[in-house]
């Protein structure tokens, strides 16, 4: 059940540079493939194009040898785990997991049986009747996994699945994902900006920079021979971030001072001393709306690259 992306291109605004530009790669059957890149590089859009949540302007999506580019999202047989989980807050955990089955008009008994299996798979046996709002972040993430797996998808698409979790839970869940994958051997695509995460779980890595697939290969290949200077720069930068000590749970947002601003087209690369050096790339219009410049204090969320002026 391989997934092939062929020259996928997507523009959100007719006059702007494409968010995704001629991206091609193959995600081999039964493996985990990571889409790795900085925030705003277009990784999530690639994943959404594969899922059918966006329509490509050009290019094709081939799943298991069949062209699904024009196929509706409901019919692609994919499982998708959203960064914000997208759990139905008005349903119990059980109803959430069983949702995909119930819309297929499967019998109650079968649904219950399948849901019980999945609850034990995600180690939340006693939690079936709770509402998602009553669970912790890690538990909610696992429910989102179970819900995606319930319909027996051919491929599993994960959009920054651990992005909203703190460091400790991230590592735990990553291990759990590896074990889950070992059991199911389901073809998986994982979007992440975290090099360590990508290299730890993925057999294949697609590095995406500025909407283009900059390099495709195994983690070892990519590290050994970066295809270009931007890839090398990105890997160094991402490694530096991964190795920097991550503070207590709340320290997701770092404060710092802008030390450099460089413009390319409609995007701006902002360098922040915080006190580590962080680089954040964002659309020029958004940067201008913040009315900050070199020497100003800002707050940076390293996990998402969000930049916000301080003290407003």
């Amino acid at each position, binding site marked *: 059940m391989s997934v092939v992306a062929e020259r996928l291109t997507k523009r*959100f*605004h007719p006059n702007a540079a494409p*968010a995704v530009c001629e991206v091609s790669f193959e995600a081999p059957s039964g493996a985990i493939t990571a889409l790795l890149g900085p*925030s*705003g590089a*277009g990784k*999530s*859009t690639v994943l959404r194009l594969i899922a*059918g*949540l*966006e*329509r490509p302007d050009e290019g094709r999506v081939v799943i298991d040898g069949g062209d699904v580019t024009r196929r509706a*999202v409901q019919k692609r047989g994919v499982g998708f785990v959203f960064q914000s989980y997208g759990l139905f807050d008005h349903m119990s955990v059980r109803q959430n997991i069983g949702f995909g089955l119930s819309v297929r008009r499967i019998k109650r008994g079968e649904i219950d049986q399948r849901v019980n299996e999945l609850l034990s798979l995600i180690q939340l046996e006693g939690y079936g009747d709770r509402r998602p709002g009553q669970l912790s972040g890690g538990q909610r993430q696992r429910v989102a996994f179970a819900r995606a797996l319930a319909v027996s998808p051919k491929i599993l698409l994960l959009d920054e699945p651990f992005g909203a979790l703190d460091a400790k839970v991230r590592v735990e869940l990553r291990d759990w994902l590896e074990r889950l994958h070992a059991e199911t051997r389901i073809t998986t695509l994982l979007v992440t900006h975290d090099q360590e995460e990508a290299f730890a779980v993925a057999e294949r890595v697609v590095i995406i920079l500025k909407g283009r697939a900059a390099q495709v290969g195994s983690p070892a290949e990519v590290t050994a021979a970066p295809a270009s200077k931007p890839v090398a720069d990105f890997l160094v930068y991402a490694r530096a971030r991964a190795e920097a000590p991550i503070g207590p749970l709340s320290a997701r947002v770092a404060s710092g001072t802008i030390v450099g601003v460089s413009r390319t087209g409609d995007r701006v690369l902002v360098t922040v001393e915080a006190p580590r050096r962080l680089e954040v790339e*964002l*659309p020029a219009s*958004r940067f201008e709306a913040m009315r900050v410049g070199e020497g100003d204090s800002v707050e940076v969320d390293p996990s998402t*690259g969000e930049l916000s002026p301080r003290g407003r």
Partner: protein
Amino acid sequence: MARSGRRASERVVTESPGVRRLLIGAAMVFLTLFLFAPLAAVFVNAFRAGAGAYAAAVADPGTREAIGLTLLVAAIVVPLNLVFGLAAAWLIAKFSFRGKGAMVTLIDLPFSISPVIAGLVFVLLFGRQGTLGPWLLERGVQIVFAVPGIVLATLFVTLPFVAREVLAQMQTQGSEEEEAALTLGAGGWRMFWSITLPKVRWSLLYGIVLCNARAMGEFGAVSVVSGLIRGETITVPLQVEILYNEYQFVAAFAVASLLTLLALLTLAARRFVEARSAR
């Protein structure tokens, strides 16, 4: 990040274009018949006899006096509402105290009470047969069937507007800036004028606009306490009814069109305020 810039119409997970067009069409047909047709009917009827008749109707002394009274009532009621609205919003947003829930309910109450009852309560209180009426009338103080009654009834029905608008904004804003001002040595009034008021200025403005529209347009409560004395206790909405009853239909609609213009201005003000406060 690209996703936040996506426009709703570009969603893939949405209705098919056909369904979309059908829903938009249905909504537009509905609003045209249900909302815009009555609006247009006001002006069509007002100008049925030409611009001359319209001007004559608006310039009629009875109408001019009604406009004068309505402006007077609004000029009394709106500032009182402003004082009350700011005080109540500040109190509820910033402090917890006994009776707070009751206070919020009381502020909301005029929204859900029939305007007729709003008029009735003042007749029962200040009428000659009322509880306080005889005592006051003996001393030459007339409330109902005079301007004070109209002011009170209008105040009753408009009481929630400023308070609710400002309260909603104060609750979302928090108090950090006020506290900062205090630690920097600002006095209470200084803090209020230079921090709190600017922070809530848009909701305050909108509350005032709404309050004013309601004050000028109130009919039910005012009609119960008015006494309908020509040139003295007739407001613009009552003048509309009187003209209607005098077979002066064009004039009735002409005066009604003034109130309609006020309503349209109110809507425009809302757009303006929303656009400004969204920045």
